[in-house]
């Protein structure tokens, strides 16, 4: 096993008594591409919230590159090299896709360097390249508020790539994308995985199969099982709580009526 980029030690998050994460232990190697799946409400998004500092753990530690993140603010964590795509697309609606990308692409995030620094030509090239990758070249100079849902999803993925953090946290990147786009995003992530550590959350199992190496299944705030895609898909517990079986469920639904 290589060097750990992220270690979660015994993290619990509770909201008014409800434990969204329960004594969660988890670790991610440097350069690893990890897929996280799990039922709705298992705590996947909360997990990302904890890593990015949006939510402070009630108990336990989060170590990134060996450093405890507890006392850091969101932007400090981001500057350490953690980037995130949200579950529902969050982009800057009054900026154009190009500007959205430029802002995140900028590596000098301090006040004065933002004020006095000039965008490097390399950055501009990256942005143009990315616009093409995410298929928004035609819309590059329209306000982002005018994009459709799927276009917004792609833009936010682009923003994450532009930010180029050491650790990419990707929450449901392909929800609402067409199959073709899904495959493109998969390829993009695979390419990125050569130089970055990535955590992907997704419910689209076809997509998961496309990119997955190691899969972690979360359930009720803790890890249910971990393994490669085949192991996980055939694990009866995963089938029970997550994947379901067509015939069985139909009966189930019927009997509940």
């Amino acid at each position, binding site marked *: 096993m290589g060097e750990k980029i992220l270690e979660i030690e015994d993290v619990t998050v509770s909201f008014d008594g409800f434990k969204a994460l329960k004594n969660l232990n988890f670790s991610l190697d440097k350069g690893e591409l990890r897929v996280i799946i799990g039922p709705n409400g298992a705590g996947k998004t909360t997990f990302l919230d904890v890593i990015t500092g949006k939510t402070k753990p009630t108990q336990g530690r989060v170590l990134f590159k060996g450093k405890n993140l507890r006392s850091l603010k969101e932007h400090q964590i*981001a500057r350490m090299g953690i980037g995130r795509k949200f579950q529902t697309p969050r982009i800057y609606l009054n900026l154009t896709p190009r500007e959205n990308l430029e802002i995140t692409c900028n590596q000098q995030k301090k006040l004065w360097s933002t*004020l006095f620094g000039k965008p490097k030509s390399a950055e501009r090239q990256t942005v*143009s390249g990315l616009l093409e990758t995410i298929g928004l070249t035609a819309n590059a100079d329209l306000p982002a508020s005018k994009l459709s849902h799927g276009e917004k999803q792609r833009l936010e993925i682009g923003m994450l790539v532009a930010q180029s953090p050491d650790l990419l946290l990707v929450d449901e990147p392909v929800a609402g994308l067409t199959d073709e786009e899904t495959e493109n995003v998969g390829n993009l992530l695979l390419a990125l995985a050569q130089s970055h550590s990535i955590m992907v959350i997704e419910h689209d199992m076809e997509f998961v199969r496309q990119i997955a190496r190691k899969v972690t299944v979360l359930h009720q705030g803790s890890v249910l099982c971990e393994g490669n895609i085949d192991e996980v898909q055939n694990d009866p517990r995963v089938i029970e709580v997550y994947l379901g079986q067509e015939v069985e469920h139909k009966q189930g639904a019927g009997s509940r009526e």
Partner: protein
Amino acid sequence: MTADAAIGRRGLKRGKKRSLLIEAGIIGAIALLLIFIIPTLISPFRLNLLGRFLSLAIVALGIDLIWGYTGLLSLGHGIFFGLGGYAIGMHLKLQVPQGELPDFMGLYGVTELPWFWHPFQAFPFASAAVVLIPGILAALLGYLVFRNRIRGVYFSILTQAATIVFFNFFNGQQKLFNGTNGLVNFKTLLGTAVGSRPSQFTFYVLTVLLLIATYALCRWLTSGRFGRLLVAIRDDESRVRFSGYDPTEFKVLVFAISGAIAGLAGAMYTLQSGSVSPRAMDVAFSIEMVIWVAIGGRGSLVGAVVGALLVNYARSFFSEQFAEIWLFFQGALFLIVVTVLPDGIVGWLRSSDLLRLGHRRQLSTYPEIEVNPEVQSERQEIETRSEE
């Protein structure tokens, strides 16, 4: 494709440079007009009025900077405006023979100059204080508020309350600031009579130049990456954090700059109106400032200036013509603008076909579906397929 795009961008850049030159040219022309032509055309009273309105346009720029671009609606800019005015006003009140006190102090039995008045004897200090005091106060207030992620409406209401507080304070400190009266009856500045024609003309020219400088500053702040970031903060502040920026720093900085601009405006206004009083910190005045910007066109610097001039002239006109009912006009004006022209006058002109300022942003749309070859061929294919 990439090559094309690169050319396109370079073309765009050249276009940008050219339009920047055109803009500078227009502004230069307006400045020349204001400084050399207008004074020969209108009476000194009207020129003084224009000079004051131009100082108000400076505050409007400051407000547009934080409201239009950063989404912070401050209802407290009167404070900063007033502080700027007081800073220069205190210096002016100290232009008395050695050992004497400003006239009003004697009336209230003050025998010794209060300690904080002393530094204002020095002109360099006073003129720095004009921007520094409001700027620092804005930074402090902003820090205390933004740090806690208080924003939007709550920020507005807090600034409004702050206005009342400062009004009360200055209004109540009879001995320190001459209370409600404010500082009036200025005599000399740097040895020349404040009220004399040449001094007033100098102040007027200075106002024009400062307005242009402020415009350039705001232009620079809002057009580059910094400006983008301000818009981003307005759109989704917490998202900005996850991209690694600290919005608090940015907001504190722009708020401070905007406060300093207001202070500058207040000083220029005071020099030309000849008085500064707690009325500058009246709640209504601060709201009016915002309304100038709203009417001119929020998020457009030209709009802010146009709005400030227009509203103030309208008010001056209506109150002269219909002294008793001009409030109706004022109220109606706000209503109409906010409901019918949500983007202000400049926004409306820009979006309507009346005016094609510069390169109007063409909304992209698909080519007509009937003539789009891609669609045509696909449709045909499907038809043949389903016929099979």
